[in-house]
């Protein structure tokens, strides 16, 4: 073993290790201790022990295995001491000590633990907002306060969601397991929804001051990469491709003054070519797997935009065709709305307007500001100014995000208020 490093240096290394490894260690400790809270305590204990022992004894050869085994022993030790006040904990300590296998498991087993953690956080028995909060905190390591900031809510609200979710996992006996092959497709869909929800909230926040919240989008992409590494199913590839191809436009989406720049007006030289190349390669892998799912189709649409050197050169025929497939694979009013906009680009505003009106007539998008903004834009292009103004006003009433509100306000002004 090498000579003990200076404390500041070791501290820095341990901090780095916490960032890189704490979620893996936690995922395994939850399995070994069969309890989220006990595992979090054990994780804290393991890093506290590292801080104390490593400067003196040197860094162990396999820090992760050391942290896991130290965390486990400390947890059993804690339970033993607490058994003085609660005899049941003594039994639990004895059971954990006997049941636990060699904590320095094989690596593929440890990778499974990360999947177990993801599937548990995204369990369908938990409410959707709790799934997102749990995933961001337990899998990504965000703090309660960071999650609250990302979703423009207060930390106590997020904290309660997480407390309730954990109580639910315990009470309902939600197993810490990767779903069986029969269950996997349905369960994976929930996981992908959680990741995509985090991404959308980062890339296009529903409310607030900024056009993007990059930390959240980055976190979702990191999560997407982790999923691709652990479970490279076609839709997992498709989702990561979609996020990368969309996120490639991030820098061009915000003007210098913080305002929103529409796709057609973006400076395409500012698109991130590396992200586009990576996304396109992932998309090809997803497409070659046979059945093409909704995420891969949306990624294909994003790729069609990414390939066009100018807005005018966009292949709207291909995009409308992809929306047709998407409307069949994953029918929703939002998909229909987007298809209508694509049709208006291919055939002109009149055809698009008829489709947008048909979607709005069914009522489900009536409170969706982008539906009214799209309608307003088509009316404006058709020269129906009074109706366009009314539609912009309706969109403005519904929009909750400041840059978007400024954009709609400007359009309204251009049409004479």
């Amino acid at each position, binding site marked *: 073993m090498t000579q003990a490093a200076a404390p500041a240096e070791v501290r820095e290394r341990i901090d780095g290790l916490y960032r890189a490894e704490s979620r893996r260690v936690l995922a395994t400790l939850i399995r070994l201790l069969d309890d989220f809270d006990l595992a979090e*305590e054990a994780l804290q204990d393991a890093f506290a022990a590292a801080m104390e022992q490593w400067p003196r004894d040197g860094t162990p050869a396999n820090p992760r295995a050391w942290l896991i085994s130290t965390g486990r022993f400390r947890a059993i030790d804690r339970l033993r001491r607490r058994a003085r006040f609660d005899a049941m904990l003594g039994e639990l300590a004895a059971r954990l000590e006997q049941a636990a296998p060699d904590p320095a498991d094989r690596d593929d087993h440890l990778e499974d633990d990360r999947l177990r953690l993801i599937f548990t956080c995204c369990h369908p028995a938990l409410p959707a907002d709790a799934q997102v909060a749990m995933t961001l*905190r337990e899998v990504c390591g965000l703090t309660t306060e960071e999650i609250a900031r990302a979703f423009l809510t207060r930390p106590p609200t997020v904290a309660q969601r997480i407390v309730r979710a954990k109580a639910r996992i315990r009470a309902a006996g939600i197993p810490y397991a990767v779903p069986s092959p029969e269950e996997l497709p349905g369960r994976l869909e929930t996981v992908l929804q959680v990741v995509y929800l985090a991404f959308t909230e980062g890339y296009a926040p529903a409310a607030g001051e900024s056009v993007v919240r990059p930390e959240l989008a980055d976190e979702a992409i990191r999560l997407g990469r982790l999923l691709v590494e652990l479970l490279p199913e076609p839709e997992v590839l498709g989702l990561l491709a979609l996020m990368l191809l969309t996120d490639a436009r991030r820098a061009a989406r915000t003007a210098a003054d913080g305002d929103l720049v529409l796709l057609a007006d973006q400076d395409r030289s500012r698109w991130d070519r590396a992200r586009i190349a990576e996304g396109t390669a992932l998309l090809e892998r997803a497409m070659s797997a046979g059945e093409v799912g909704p995420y891969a189709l949306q990624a294909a649409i994003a790729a069609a935009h990414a390939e066009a050197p100018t807005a005018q050169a966009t292949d709207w025929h291909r995009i409308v065709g992809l929306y047709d497939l998407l409307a069949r694979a994953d029918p929703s009013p939002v998909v229909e709305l987007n298809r209508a906009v694509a049709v208006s680009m291919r055939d002109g505003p009149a055809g698009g307007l008829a489709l947008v009106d048909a979607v709005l007539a069914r009522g489900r998008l009536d409170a969706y500001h982008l539906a009214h903004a799209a309608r307003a834009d088509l009316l404006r292009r058709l020269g129906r100014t009074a109706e366009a103004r009314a539609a912009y006003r309706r969109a403005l009433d519904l929009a909750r995000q400041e840059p978007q509100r400024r954009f709609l306000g400007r359009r309204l002004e251009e049409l004479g208020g």
Partner: protein
Amino acid sequence: MKYLCLVYAEESRVDAMPQDEVDALIDETNANNEELQASGQLILAEALEHVAEAITVRVRDGRLSATDGPFAETNEQLGGFVLIEARDLNEAVRIAGRIPSARLGSVEVRPVIDLMREHSDQ
């Protein structure tokens, strides 16, 4: 992040506890504090005398006044506090839930403002 866990309980209920239960609670509280110390999360933990021993100080127009109390009409009184270092609010909640007196009354978890940092941010 620092969090202050304010431990509230009904003084009358605690007073009515048999001595062996009080001893057990003190014992368990000390053990819990030792655990927190070992994991590097304890900054300071203290129990407080009864509110009857308290005095409230105010300064108005440069004049100091002191009154008995607090006399707020509440069922639970502040009986102690634990100042902790935690990664986030949920970790603080978990630690607060392990404070033995939480079983008697309630624990209010308050994030501590870092005044030095707030100041330098401006």
